[in-house]
């Protein structure tokens, strides 16, 4: 009886592995489709034209006016918005595909493939959970797997909400492939139960919040990273640098620096309370398991450091002279702390949390 159940679990674990490998294969196809999207996009004449337009606009960057909501009711008064001074007046790029139809087609294929891979990926996570009969984040392999799935979920949700996030596709798929590659090769752990210290419903709450926070922070960090490049490019434009070459061709298809910056701020700020809650849930669990809610264990310390650097970033955004690039560096540093807390602390530093290790 017991062995039969164990065999079933083992089978489900195998299914989980197959699903994860299939997801990786489909993500790879999505990656290639995104590459095709960017490549075709760079050929697009319209992309170059719009770049020319950008160049022209930046010559007189003061203010642009967009109209909104005028289309629904023909007669309805329009709400005119004035863009802010920090916008530089440079509009968002057209996206990876430029205006190239073939590029756009590949982009759509890439998104469909990403969605398909996501289904397989989530299937893999669920099968893993079923095989171990608990939450699928008891060790680094499971955590990585679930983390990747959550990042893709966040992206797909934003797409469904019709947010302008298509530009993130290539970077996301690349990162998820790296994450899964690392998970299946270095971090793989055959499915099994947990040590008693991990038996707690706080495991569900604390770790799931950590995963969601990390996945969203990841989207924010990607946007921040691209912001730094695009900002550089825009500064070049306003100084009259030539808007030519492959690099410019890539840059001009990205959203405007101001849009990237705003997107990064929004996602980081939106998930900061959740990250705060994650740490608190961890403290409550530590209180139940070890008799103290805070003991400066390395994992706790690095969660605290991550939290403080994100708080720094939020402060920087509200402080004259620190907005823009300086705040962006802080955001990247904060995310680096998050990643270090996950890989670095688990691998290099042993603390009370280390049984969830490799």
């Amino acid at each position: 009886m017991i062995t039969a159940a164990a065999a079933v679990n083992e089978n489900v674990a195998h299914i989980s592995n197959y699903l994860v490998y299939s997801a990786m294969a489909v993500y790879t196809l999505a990656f290639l489709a995104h590459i095709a999207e960017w490549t075709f996009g760079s050929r697009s004449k319209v992309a170059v034209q719009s770049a020319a337009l950008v160049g022209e606009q930046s010559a007189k960057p003061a203010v642009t006016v967009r109209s909104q909501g005028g289309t629904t009711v023909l007669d309805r008064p329009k709400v005119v918005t004035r863009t802010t001074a920090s916008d530089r007046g440079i509009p968002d790029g057209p996206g990876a595909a430029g205006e190239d139809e073939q590029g756009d087609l590949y982009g759509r294929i890439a998104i469909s493939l990403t969605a398909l891979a996501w289904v397989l990926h989530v299937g893999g996570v669920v099968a893993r959970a079923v095989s171990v009969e608990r939450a699928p984040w008891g060790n680094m392999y499971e955590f990585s797997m679930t983390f990747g799935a959550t990042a893709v979920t966040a992206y797909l949700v934003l797409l469904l909400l019709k947010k302008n996030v298509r530009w993130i596709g290539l970077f996301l798929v690349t990162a998820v492939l790296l994450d899964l590659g690392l998970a299946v090769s270095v971090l793989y752990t055959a499915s099994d139960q947990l040590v008693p210290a991990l038996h707690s419903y706080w495991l569900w709450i604390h770790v799931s919040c950590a995963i969601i926070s990390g996945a969203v922070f990841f989207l924010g960090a990607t946007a921040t990273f691209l912001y730094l490049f695009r900002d550089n490019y825009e500064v070049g434009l306003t100084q009259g640098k030539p808007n030519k070459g492959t690099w410019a061709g890539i840059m001009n298809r990205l959203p405007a620096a101001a849009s990237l910056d705003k997107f990064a701020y929004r996602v980081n700020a939106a998930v900061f309370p959740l990250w705060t809650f994650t740490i608190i849930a961890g403290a409550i669990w530590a209180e139940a398991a070890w008799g103290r809610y805070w003991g400066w264990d390395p994992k706790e310390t690095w969660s605290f450091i991550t939290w403080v650097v994100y708080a720094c970033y939020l402060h920087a955004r509200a402080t004259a002279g620190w907005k823009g690039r300086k705040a962006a560096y802080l955001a990247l540093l904060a995310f680096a702390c998050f990643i270090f807390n996950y890989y670095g602390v688990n691998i290099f530093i042993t603390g009370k949390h280390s049984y969830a290790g490799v």
Partner: protein
Amino acid sequence: MSTTETDESELGTAGAQLSTAPQEDLGTVVPGSFGGVRAPGLGGGLAWTGREVWGWVRWMWRQLTSMRVALILLFLLSLAAIPGSLIPQTNTNAVKAQDFKDAHTTVAPIYEKLGLFHVYSSPWFSAIYILLFISLAGCIVPRSWQFVGQLRAKPPAAPRNLTRLPAYATWRTTAEPEQVLDGAQKLLRKRRFRTAVGGSAVASEKGFLREAGNLIFHIALFGLLISFAVGQLWKGDGSKLIVEGDGFTNTVTSYDDFTPGTFYGADDLNPFGFTLDSFTATYATSGPDIGTARTFRANIHYWNGADGKQQKSSIEVNKPLEIGGSKIYLNGHGYAPVVTVKDGTGTVVYQGAVAFLPTDTDLNSTGVIKVPDARDKSGKTDQLGFSGSFLPTAVVSQTRGWYSSFPALANPALILNAYHGDLGVDSGLPQNVYQLDTKNMKQFKDAKGNIVSKVMQVGDTMTLPDGAGSITFNGIKTFAQFQITHQPATGWALGSVISMIAGLIGSLFIQRRRVWVRAVRGADGVTVVELAGLGRSESAKIADELGTVVDGLLPVAPQASEDPPEEPEDPTEDPTEDLSAETRSEDEGARA
């Protein structure tokens, strides 16, 4: 926030005080900045110096409570927390810290001086967070006052030129201006704006919870700091190893070790006690994690108060037992072999269970048995000591010799070496009960000079040479290790963090914004409605919100039939031309 700043300068009071964040003071100061005119004579000099000193103090205070310094202090705090995660800390793991000191003899003294073995209570770490909290106090007190003022004040009056605001809409209506304003006020009130009518315009504002949330968050940080401090100062923390069947009463002397906080002492321990009836452990018996623990449970009886009734309960990992203000945690477990020792005269000089401490997850355990009352054949005092290991599932291999391959009692064995001589227990020096000091002891050897040692199973006896006595392995008991902590103010800490999260949510998800509606009769007798909205720079929703206000207002103020010719179809034409020209020159002015 540069938008808000430009807006504030452009719009005067209308854009002012959208938040209570302190203004940046970017001016430079030099000696003589504050003193003003120096009157002649000593009195003048003194007055000048006084003004100068006071000026500097105020300047430094303003710097300390500025956002920039708060930012820098926060950053320093994160940096300062790093070394404590890389270097073993005495308060979290004294053994590891000592190992580190032993291994790094050159840097250890330097680290010691820098407080790197107790980073989180070191002067420099404390300095950073104390400065941060002073800065925080200096920040939130004035901000709270300002906020109260803002709550009492009316929304600022509409700026003259509404077209300059980030979101703007206008139309011509057949309704009377008064009707429009009345309707606008009702509508905005319904949308929970605070409104005020001033002249030909309605001013309104919403989203004060943002500011309130932000203040609550920062005040709750204080709550957390205080709770943490109280928790550290009034805490008591000790551990106790209990063998099956034995008990514990909560007094300082019954602990194996006890570390009280600064203000917590022997008199504060609440009277309770418990006995360990039995201990259950189950382990994975197959799979890659074979031997990994599944459940640990200590079954106990406890009593609370001097004459409390006995109650049955259990303690598990993650499930501490709370008695009075103390919590009992299960921290570890192991085996205690039961032995009987006879000395050279044949008397039983020791009988009982001795805890052997686990060294790994398969519960390879080591321990010692000290028998101070033993005599040799001739009746002379000759103390006996045994050291060795206990193996719950003993196996033997070529490379490792005897070891345990599984944590449960599948094939228990006790392996002991025997010594005689002076245990050193009477020397007055404190001794570790888990270590044998063999400095003044001789190991038993048989006639051939081989060391006497035996792998004993339950029931076996090891006889010592020369009639020095014997030791019998009678049985096995389990023991459990408990941590008993008393930590006050955890409830306050929890309350603080809940307020922090609530405050954060208000602060980050609510937008503070203002909407103005103006209705005036134009030159041709038709009413012109103008709407404008202003939010903080991060709020993109202000245009959408203005859109819904427009929709809500249209039934009250229906559009006049023909569109005025000056209403532009392409928005890059009419107001834009002059706007961009104006703003550009302002921008240039700002840059210069």
